[in-house]
């Protein structure tokens, strides 16, 4: 099962709403979170390699999520589940919903992107693993499955370099950038996608509350960088360091 999130396209310049309540999303191009795309690609490769029998794409949010799910079907997922919910969902709620879905569908592997590029939380994968009591391999840059032993060997990208873990399946994996390069949605697959099912569910069916412990107070843009100044001599530099920046 692969969790997909619909976010503002990563190439779009972000603008803050005038009331500072959030980011401008009307009339802005939205697409699949790049890390989710990588996760989906990995799942598809697993299916092509004979390790998986089915790839299910899941997304939560308003009606437009269906578009993103269609894209995942066009890339090659077998079926999709749309959990209809008000747009502002926080990681814990998503994790609880995913836990419910896992109990329903019983996947051997749950794959998520390491974080969404709109909130940069990097929490959902870890929370879901905790709720399910499953092993987790986050920031995966390489995944090798072993069918007989039912394990996944995951290379993780950490600050110090690479760490290799061996997880017993079922497990949760979150993907990092270098895991793979996602495929394009080709026309024959787009055609096939039209007949693939997208099941709609609600949070009530999954017995998940929409209560949130978090509240967004304000969203502001980072301060504008001041332009650099070109100096004409070393003396001027020393003078500025001494008298303006007060560092010497």
């Amino acid at each position, binding site marked *: 099962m692969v969790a997909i999130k619909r976010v503002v*396209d*990563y*190439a*779009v310049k972000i603008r803050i709403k005038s009331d500072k309540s959030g980011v401008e999303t009307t*009339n*802005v*191009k939205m*697409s*699949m979170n*790049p890390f989710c795309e990588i996760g989906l690609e990995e799942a598809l490769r697993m299916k092509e390699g004979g390790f998986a029998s089915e790839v299910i794409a899941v997304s939560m949010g308003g009606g437009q999520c269906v*578009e993103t799910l269609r*894209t995942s079907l*066009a890339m090659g997922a077998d079926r999709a589940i749309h959990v209809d919910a008000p747009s502002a969902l926080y990681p814990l709620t998503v994790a609880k919903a995913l836990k419910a879905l896992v109990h329903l569908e019983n996947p051997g592997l749950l794959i998520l992107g390491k974080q969404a590029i709109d909130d940069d939380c990097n929490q959902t994968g870890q929370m879901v693993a905790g709720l399910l009591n499953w092993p987790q391999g986050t920031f995966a840059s390489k995944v090798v499955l072993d069918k007989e032993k039912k394990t996944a060997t995951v290379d993780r990208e950490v600050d110090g370099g690479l760490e290799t873990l061996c997880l017993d399946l079922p497990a949760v994996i979150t993907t990092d950038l270098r895991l793979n*390069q996602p495929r*394009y*949605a*080709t*026309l*024959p697959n*787009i*055609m096939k996608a039209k007949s693939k099912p997208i099941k709609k569910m609600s949070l009530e069916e999954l017995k998940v509350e929409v209560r949130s412990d978090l509240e967004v107070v304000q969203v502001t843009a980072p301060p504008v960088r001041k332009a650099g100044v070109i100096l004409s001599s070393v003396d001027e530099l020393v003078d500025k360091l001494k008298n303006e920046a007060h560092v010497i």
Partner: protein
Amino acid sequence: MQNRMAAAAKKLLHQRRSILNFSQINRSSSTSGFTHHCGHVPLKQFLASYRWDLWRSCLIHMQNMSAVHHRKFGSVASTIVQRNPMFSTINDDDLIYFEKILGMKRVIQDHEELKTANTDWMHKYKGSSKLMLQPENTAELSQILEYCNSRRLAVVPQGGNTGLVGGSVPVYDEIIINTRRMNSIISFDKVSGVLVCEAGCILENLISFLDKEGFIMPLDLGAKGSCQIGGNISTNAGGLRLVRYGSLHGTVLGLEVVLANGSVIEMLGTLRKDNTGYDLKHLFIGSEGSLGIVTKVSILTPPKLSSVNIAFLACQDYISCQKLLFQAKRKLGEILSAFEFLDAQAMNLVLHHLDSVRNPLPSSIYNFYILIETTGSNESNDKEKLEAFLLHAMESGLVSDGALAQDFSQASSFWHIREGIPEALMKAGAVYKYDLSLPVEKMYDLVEDMRIRLGGAANVVGYGHLGDGNLHLNVSAPQYDDAILAQIEPFVYEWTSRHRGSISAEHGLGLMKAEKIYYSKSSETVQLMASIKKLLDPNGIMNPYKVIPSSLVS
């Protein structure tokens, strides 16, 4: 001094001998008094003219030794152009005057900078100018030109120097007038979308500026990071979006130009409609700097529409490509914004030579690839429309396979393939470039004929703006070879002429095709062009030796 003279004399002698060996020689009317002769020349006459030229070369400033410019990779015939002896050479008084007007910083004589400015993007043409001037505003430019005109100093207007026909670099020692410092945006009207800016603004900067305002430039080309809008206008650049927004003749509303004698012609209207008198700006759009220098531009910019979709498709044969174009114009109609094609050879070159490119359709090799872009205001509508069109095309067998970009980065990777072809060609070795307008049904026939003609000697690559009937025919060879060139020219021009095509769809004539204009224009037309040139530039100092045959201008 004696040694240098001797060296100059030796060089002259060698050049004279090598010219006389050519069997086919241009009857260009040479004002130096020395006309080229066919075949054997009596020794006495040869020596006499040689001595006369030797005497003359002492008078000419030592650096301008070569009296004959032999184009490095040119065809054997008809491109031998002599330096017009009516032009003066730069002296110290000139330098003092320029420094007085521009200050020392913007009068450039530095060897390295001049080397770059003297060479075109393809490293095919190299001039020997000793001076580059960088005016900051129209007044300075006007003073410079007035002076140059009075002194009979030839000039070359230069913008981003990204032209592909040698039109932006000197042939001999013409003074380079570079507009890069005239790069301010003067005004922008958010309601009408009219942008007024100076000619030295780089296209990509204008695109970024407009992006913030919610507009786009009506033209887009691979060279956008370096080319300047003044140059785009002087060459009537086409580009990738012409099929949607039309040519610069339609989108430019006004110009300010400076003529050879320094007079500033202000036609910088911002009105959409203005039928008061002859619309002279059209003369300057596409005249490649030979009638005047563009200093300011007012251009109508279309609003930026949010929904851009792009598909990369594969077709098995050229007929399918044509039928696809026909269908696309009907089914996608108002949202179609680009329709490009490339053949298998072009695709292979790009995949082989460029690093960050991958094939969107790796499952098999196809003969033709088409890139379709749509731009509209409604995201879901447009995507549905495009998908429906593509699925229908696939079902009817026009398209064998295709991929639809799902986000901006996929879209730019598709464009990277198409825009990267010129770069890949440069990396592959020597390239002979031709830019032709032909009837759509005949376009690929030329590529196939050329392939048969050249056999295994070179790789013939075809790609271009199928939507506009514009073929970019490129012949890639490991090295420049006159034998290959002889097979290509004049065959390609004659072929084009036979089908009433244009030998230069969008690149212009420049130096490369200056003498070839008759393949696409009648002699009466060209005579009229020469009269206009004489009227606006009587001393012929503006970008000489280019665009129209030199014999008509001197």
